[in-house]
């Protein structure tokens, strides 16, 4: 935990200006560094910017980018944009939820997988699209999703 706190300090030092408009960039820096926003991070941002912790948390929960549990070893991003939805992203989402027993923004208990549903990845020509740790899978169906998840599970073990 010592390490976590000192890394938070390092990030805070990069934002010497105590201004409200530094709040979002600060949270983003935390999200990029740790992959999630920890309780300590919220508290220390609050004291750094002289803002109540509730305000910081209230802002962070408003936006989609911030998550509050650590990311899994494999971060699954599923696009649920219009085109992907028509291509069956809803069914893929059901399948992933069933396989991993997590919903959007959560991480599995063993810390292996986390799930993020994005509103549009921007590759509407190849729908439906899923990405695991930055590797894209396009034009997939339920069966492929099962195989992909299974493959990653095996890789981890």
């Amino acid at each position, binding site marked *: 935990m010592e390490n976590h706190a000192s890394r938070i300090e390092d990030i805070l030092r990069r934002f010497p200006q105590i*201004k*409200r*408009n*530094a*709040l*979002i*960039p600060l*949270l*983003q820096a935390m999200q990029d560094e740790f992959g999630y926003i920890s309780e300590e991070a919220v508290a220390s941002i609050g004291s750094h910017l002289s803002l109540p912790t509730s305000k910081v948390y*209230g*802002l962070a929960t*408003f*936006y*989609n*980018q*911030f998550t509050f549990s650590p990311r899994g070893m494999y971060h699954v991003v599923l696009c*649920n*944009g*219009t*085109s992907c*939805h*028509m291509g069956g992203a*809803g*069914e893929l989402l059901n399948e992933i939820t069933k396989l991993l027993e997590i919903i959007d923004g959560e991480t599995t208990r063993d810390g292996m997988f986390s799930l993020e549903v*994005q*509103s*549009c*990845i*921007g*590759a*509407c*020509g*190849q*729908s439906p*699209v899923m*990405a695991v740790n930055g590797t*894209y899978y*396009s034009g997939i169906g339920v069966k492929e999703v099962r195989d992909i998840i299974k493959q990653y599970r095996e890789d981890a073990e």
Partner: protein
Amino acid sequence: MQSEKEFLLRLAQLDATELTSEEQGRKDLLKRSTVTRALVMVNSSTSGMVAGAGQSMEAIKQYVADRSLDIELAETGSIGLSSEEPVVSVQLPGRTRIFFRRVSADKVSSILDDLFHQVVPGQGVIGQLRHEGQEAWADVPFLDEIPFFALQKRIVMGACGIIDPFSFGEYVANGGYSAFLKTIRSFTFNEVCELVEESGLRGRSGGGFPTGLKWKAAFKTPSDQKYLVCNAEESDPGAFMDRNLMEGNPFQLLEGISIAAYAIGSNRAYIYIRSEYRDAIRRIDNAIKELRAIGLLGDNILDSGYNLQISLRKGPGAFVCGEETALIASLEGRRGMPSSKPPYPSSSGYLGRPTVVNNVETLSNLPVIVRKGPKWFRGIGSEKCPGTKIFSVSGRVAMAGLVEVPMGCTFDTIVNDILGGAQKGRELKALHVGGPLGCMVPVELMNVPVSYENLKEKGLVMGSGGILVMDDKTCVVNTVRYFMEYVDKQSCGKCIPCREGTRRMAEILGSITRKPEDEEDHTSLERFKGVMQLESLAEVMKDTSLCGLGQNAPNPVMSTLKYFRNEYEEHIFKRKCPSNSCTELRSWFIDVDMCTGCSICAKRCPSEAIIGTARHPYFIVQEKCIGCGICYEVCKFSAVYYK
């Protein structure tokens, strides 16, 4: 020999005739009119990467390394053929550039083998780029002869997919930055505002507000500091034109921002971009650095006395931040909630100072308007809406992609003529235009010339320009439900009509697209009452919501109630989805020949709708079935099917 910097600046302010022959040679190299070694360009924008451009690029590197060839491998943006990615183009010395579609890693070596032997590969050729002085490939169509390109007018998107977005030199050699230099050298602030007003350019983000007027309002408000904000928070699912402009030609956007900032007398500009747009961020970041190094951003730009700083701000992701007041709130470090107008941002915006918020496509139009003049721009498009509009077309269409057409063009031309209509064997049913806040356009209205006024007359909107093509296998009600659920999730919660209205609408639409779980009288009545209230609910939301999100949220419902009432009725009265795509309305059956009578489906059925005796085929009682599909999932013998 001039330094690179001096040469580029000289290039940006000179006509071609004034160059010395040595300079002309350097320009040709930058412009890639002449190449000294083979050039291979890969579309590394998001659409390309998703389709596997990264692997193709690795394969090309491997190919080159294996044969120790000397070639130039460069990245580029997308030419707009999103469903044909990864697109790779190759230019051999003295020959025209030739484009290939779907170049996956395994096809790389065969294509390059053929080309290096001066043979045109048999498969995957899109066409060649017409260029004077370069020898054309025989029997390969020119890009401008293919319907996809021939019917478009690419004044904003023209260089995307052709030039290298990381190379400032290439942008300048193609005429870039001459508009900005002309602006700061020969126009006053007000003259630029007037020029753009004269051109008739209107905001491309959906509202269609005249850009020149917006600028003038901000310009005339006295203040110690003014801000220009580029709205790159393109969060409409299905819209990707702004992303393509940023990934394919970032310098054009930055030049546009510089012109706009100058026009309103601002020396501080922000680009508010979606944090998910990593590739676009990388390119714009690089572009800003290059411009700073060359002195086109910073203090006292080229001794003109004008200062400009552009910084990138990553939006933390909220659909509502596309609304300008919400965007400003987010920039200030608050929750992205809209506020009531007036005061308009042009008088009191970011930190209470006059602020102009313009969209990426609007700003990308500026360099060409300044370069070629407002008269030229007025000659394109329709009288009230000059210029072009980029549409991103996806869904059940033969080719998905980006299309730039003059205003006044019809949807029919865009979808049928340019993109080849519906997919093979299917029939076009409708177009959903403008994302979650847009409208459903039935096939009968596809010949309406597209402009802000024309669409408004018909009760439709253009939105940001995303078109979703729907065919006979897609359900209108289900799509509308998807949009409503999306908007419900994205509503900021500030005003009640939007927060509650979108939730109720999503519930009502949800209840028609699934089977009722119990058949008691009062639940059916409730459900029916809800449906009857859709229309009045929509009107209340339209009239009383605070911002565009709530006001436009009922658009999909209202337009489909108007044009596709029969589909609603089928769902409500017959509990049947005409296109069979509402999964929860499907009727399930058990194939007598396939069923082994293992009884697993009967055990798992939540409504005890499956009856039978072990080791004999089971049967689904339709009246009891709630359509959950669990039997289908658990059956090991694929005996369950739906109709």
